[in-house]
């Protein structure tokens, strides 16, 4: 990993964390309405994967999409304004937290439908292959989403058409309040790759380097026209399923609690400094700047106007 990349990674992970912590704080004030699902705790995944991508590559995301958006280059001002439902939002305030998108950045949208991203990513992969753009499509999905039929249909299509798609499972142990160990017939999600004769790997999703390496391999494979892979990243979410969740299902002790307490940002900071990829001073600076950046985003959102009433009727059809 290059130093520049490591700096970007550290900044990006901090941006995600600060963004989510702020949204969490503001949600309790009532200024943000609706369903909000926070990504805090899972930063290493979006960051480690998107570190390999450029604007020409695509990602599909989930209901828990803020982290993917930031890692794929969406502006935090426009994101925060979107979550506030303001005119200056990335989607003019018409989408909200679950529907942030930025097609120009290859961000094909957070998605309120669990499992909705699989076919979309396959389609983006099809475009890439057909137009020979060299783009890769990454499909982020949860352990819960892996039980939707779209998982099966999507991965099978990508496999038989050898599409440049990488399926990244964010296995945070739960779908809402339902443990993955209950909802999934298979012990791991990665082992399901055998059903499609493609590679599948399970890695520590709290360790950026592990994610970075596994995703890098899968993305390279995709770019080399060798077809799709599944990369399963084991992780945990810091907050509840959505804001307001009592989280009674979370373990208070044992390995689950240890996983919960592992902070991927701290892990990265320590390792990256040790590997001399960043210095402590740089890290401190990034942390400070990131806080400021997110503060500014909140201010931007708070002071942005509501959408004009005419917007209700706009953007239905393309002309």
């Amino acid at each position, binding site marked *: 990993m290059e130093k520049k990349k490591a700096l970007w990674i550290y900044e990006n992970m901090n941006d995600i964390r600060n963004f989510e912590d702020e949204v969490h704080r503001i949600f309790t004030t009532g200024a943000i*309405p*609706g*369903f909000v699902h926070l990504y805090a705790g899972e930063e290493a995944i979006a960051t480690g994967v998107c570190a390999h991508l450029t604007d020409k590559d695509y990602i599909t995301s989930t209901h828990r999409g803020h982290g993917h958006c930031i890692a794929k280059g969406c502006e935090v001002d426009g994101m925060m304004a979107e979550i506030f*439902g*303001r*005119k200056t939002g990335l*989607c003019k*305030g*018409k*989408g*909200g*937290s*679950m*529907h942030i998108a930025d097609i120009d950045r290859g961000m094909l949208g957070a*998605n*309120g*439908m*669990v*499992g909705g991203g699989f076919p979309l990513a396959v389609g983006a992969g099809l475009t890439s292959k057909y137009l020979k753009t060299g783009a890769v499509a990454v499909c982020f999905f949860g352990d*819960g*989403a892996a*039980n*939707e*039929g779209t998982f099966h249909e999507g991965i099978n299509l990508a496999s038989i058409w050898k599409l440049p798609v990488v399926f990244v499972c964010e296995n945070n142990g739960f*779908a*809402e*309040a*339902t*443990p993955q*160990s*209950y*909802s*999934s017939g298979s012990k791991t999600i990665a082992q399901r790759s055998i059903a499609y004769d493609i590679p599948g790997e399970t890695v520590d999703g709290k360790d950026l380097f592990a994610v970075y390496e596994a995703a890098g391999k899968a993305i390279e494979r995709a770019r080399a026209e060798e077809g799709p892979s599944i990369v399963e990243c084991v992780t945990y979410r810091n907050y509840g399923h959505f804001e307001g969740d*009592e989280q*009674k*299902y979370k*373990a*208070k002790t044992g390995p689950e609690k240890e996983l919960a307490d592992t902070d991927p940002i701290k892990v990265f900071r320590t390792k990256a400094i040790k590997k001399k990829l960043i210095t402590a001073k740089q890290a401190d600076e990034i942390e400070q700047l990131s806080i400021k950046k997110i503060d500014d985003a909140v201010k931007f959102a708070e002071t942005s106007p*509501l*959408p004009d*009433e005419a*917007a*209700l*009727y706009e953007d*239905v059809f393309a002309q």
Partner: protein
Amino acid sequence: MARQSKITMMQAITEALDMAMEKDEKVILLGEDIAGGTTVDHLNGEGAWGGVFGLTKGLVEKYGHERVIDTPISEMGYMGAAVGAAATGLRPVPELMFNDFIGFCFDTLLAQGSKMRYMFGGKATIPMTVRTNHGAGASAAAQHSGSYYGIFGSVPAIKVVVPSNAYDAKGLLLAAIEEDNIVVFSEDKTIYSLKEEVPEEYYTVEIGKAKIKREGKDLSIVTIGKMLYVALEVAERLAKEGIEVEVIDLLTVAPWDEETVLNSVKKTGRLIIIDEANPHNNTATDIASIVSDKAFDYLDGPVKCVCAPNTPVPFAANLEKLYLPNAEKVLNVADELIADLK
């Protein structure tokens, strides 16, 4: 035996589920996180959630995970399993967490469950109640705010119920679970906390019957779900001008109660239907077309529909408010109809 205080529509629904399960062992519930935390050790069999809105809270503690079944996120799988279980002797009550997920399980209702009895020459019986919810107004954005009871209602052999209040919700849900047919029971997520007096006893409210919530002789307003409250506000305001509005709460949207609606229109000669679904091919237009036909000679003005615009549901709070039918929009339409009465 009247209970001390009013209860919410949410509590009424939970109570109905409880009573239905108490009464008949064959009633089982399936859905995502309707218990929550199944197999989590430290919960000791208790539910972590009781559904995303808490409607099934307490039931797993009483009836166990055998009857309150958490499902993976596999709507087609568990909804189809409910059809299969119904065809073989159980009375499943699956929950579709939001009606917006219809696209993940529509086949099991459209092509399997609703057609089996007919295709099999009357041999299959599918006693199954699909609980779901609809409605804008909760800032839940485009994929969690739709109103699709009209789509379910377009399918032959599916009955569709949309309760507007706690009393009817309880009675209709119990009636639905007693039915030997597929009933889609669609709750409006924004009125779960409305309170009403609700008897503690087991009782049913007849499916297929509308209720006249306010009598009047000048203008009929037919409503679906929470649109009732818009109509009542309109009625109140028009009463001040001496206009008597008859407000009819449809309750069952498929098959809807032609008799009650037609009788009212024959009396008033004027009809507005409020339906928060998107405006085309919905329940409102169905009613409008049938009433315009069958009550043609009684109408003093055109039947009017007040619906959502033909757009997805926007997220921003101001736009979402504008999206929903409200008293102003209805009054605008009413003014036209009753111009000659003023």
